[in-house]
């Protein structure tokens, strides 16, 4: 049924959107620029909507969770991002929260039969 597929897609996007910040912060424990970051997210099974990544990176940087610098690589200037000190702390807290949510969901959805 197309309506059900639509609904599932909407719920899936909503669910993934919430976890995207966590994925980006996690991936930026290593320094990356936008293009390679998106590739690594895609390789990990978390593709991000085109054009949505850079605004997210800027927001996280403005919030003090990331740092960035322009550097030349492969004959072109690129902006490299990495997790800031504050970002490391926030990532740890978010991961704790993520694990707690995951455990709760597992407990709630576990089949007892």
């Amino acid at each position, binding site marked *: 049924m197309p309506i059900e597929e639509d609904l599932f897609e909407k719920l899936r996007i909503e669910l993934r959107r919430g976890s995207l910040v966590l994925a980006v912060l996690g991936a930026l424990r290593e320094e990356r*620029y*936008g*293009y390679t970051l998106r590739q690594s997210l895609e390789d990990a099974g978390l593709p991000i*909507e*085109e*054009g*949505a990544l*850079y*605004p997210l990176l*800027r927001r996280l940087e403005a919030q003090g969770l990331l740092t960035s610098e*322009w550097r030349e690589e492969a004959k*072109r*200037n*690129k*902006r490299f991002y990495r997790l800031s000190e504050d970002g490391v702390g926030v990532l740890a807290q978010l991961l704790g929260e993520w694990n707690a949510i995951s455990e709760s969901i597992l407990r709630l959805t576990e089949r007892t039969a």
Partner: protein
Amino acid sequence: MDLIDRYLAAVRRNLPAAKADDIVAELRDDLMTRQEDREESLGRPLSKDETSALLKDFGHPLTVASRYRKHQYLIGPETFPFYLATMRVVLLIVGAVVIVVSIAKALLGGVDAIQAVAQTLSGLWSAVFVNVAIVTAVFAILERKGFPYAHLAKWRPDELPALSQKQPGPWESAFEVAASIGFLLWWTGVIVIPYTAQAPEFRLEPDPIWGPLFWPVLVLAAARLVHNVILWLRPRWTMLRHAIGAATAVGGVALLLIIYQAGHWVTVVATGMPAAEALQLDASLNLALKIAMIVTGVVWTLGCMGALWQMVRASRERA
């Protein structure tokens, strides 16, 4: 390359000026890297259509640029319920005022029914349009300048209306408020109801008694409006409501007594009819007003006693 430049120029036009260079430089690098990656995998340069597809994948320039803006919506989800509630109240009042004024004009102003309906619909449409725009603009500004969430978070559950408290429906409340607003607009001369349009042979003139009473009547009507608004929107402000209710009831009866003592309230001035007929009409009209005042006086006195009793009861409950 030309397509990518045109795309980036379109994005730039919608970016915040201070950050545009930096953002465009980053997007350019991303698009160029993508293009090179594709070209490498295909072993040839991308065609115009392929570059076009790559840009379409990236997103519409407006969408891409809008993501860099601090505010991506006019009214956010936290403000929206208050926006909707305010809009509802404003539109109910506006709708009711337009309808009340139109009915008054139709009954007193000699406008025929079809004309009155047409005027009402046209008035309703422009009033609704203007007020929707004003409320939306106010909330959009509040959304950007800081919505008073802290103030709203101070709401107290015990201020919610009691289940036993009889509350009038929204339209009933809106019409009461609208009638008060309509009266105030008429009394202050903002709207003019041409009550002599159907009688070219005479006109009505208010007697001198009304002159000194302009301000007392205005204050009384304004207080009544406040009372009706509280009854509708803040029913738990019982003490204030009962105090205003009692004060306006006492004031109303006192004012009515002063007006009644004048004995003559409007004068019929003949502009075509015989003087004797005008005198007769004058007498009948003033007699009708006298009877109406007696009836109103009795009703208001009872209402005044009721309002005073409610105030006493509310203060006892509070104590």
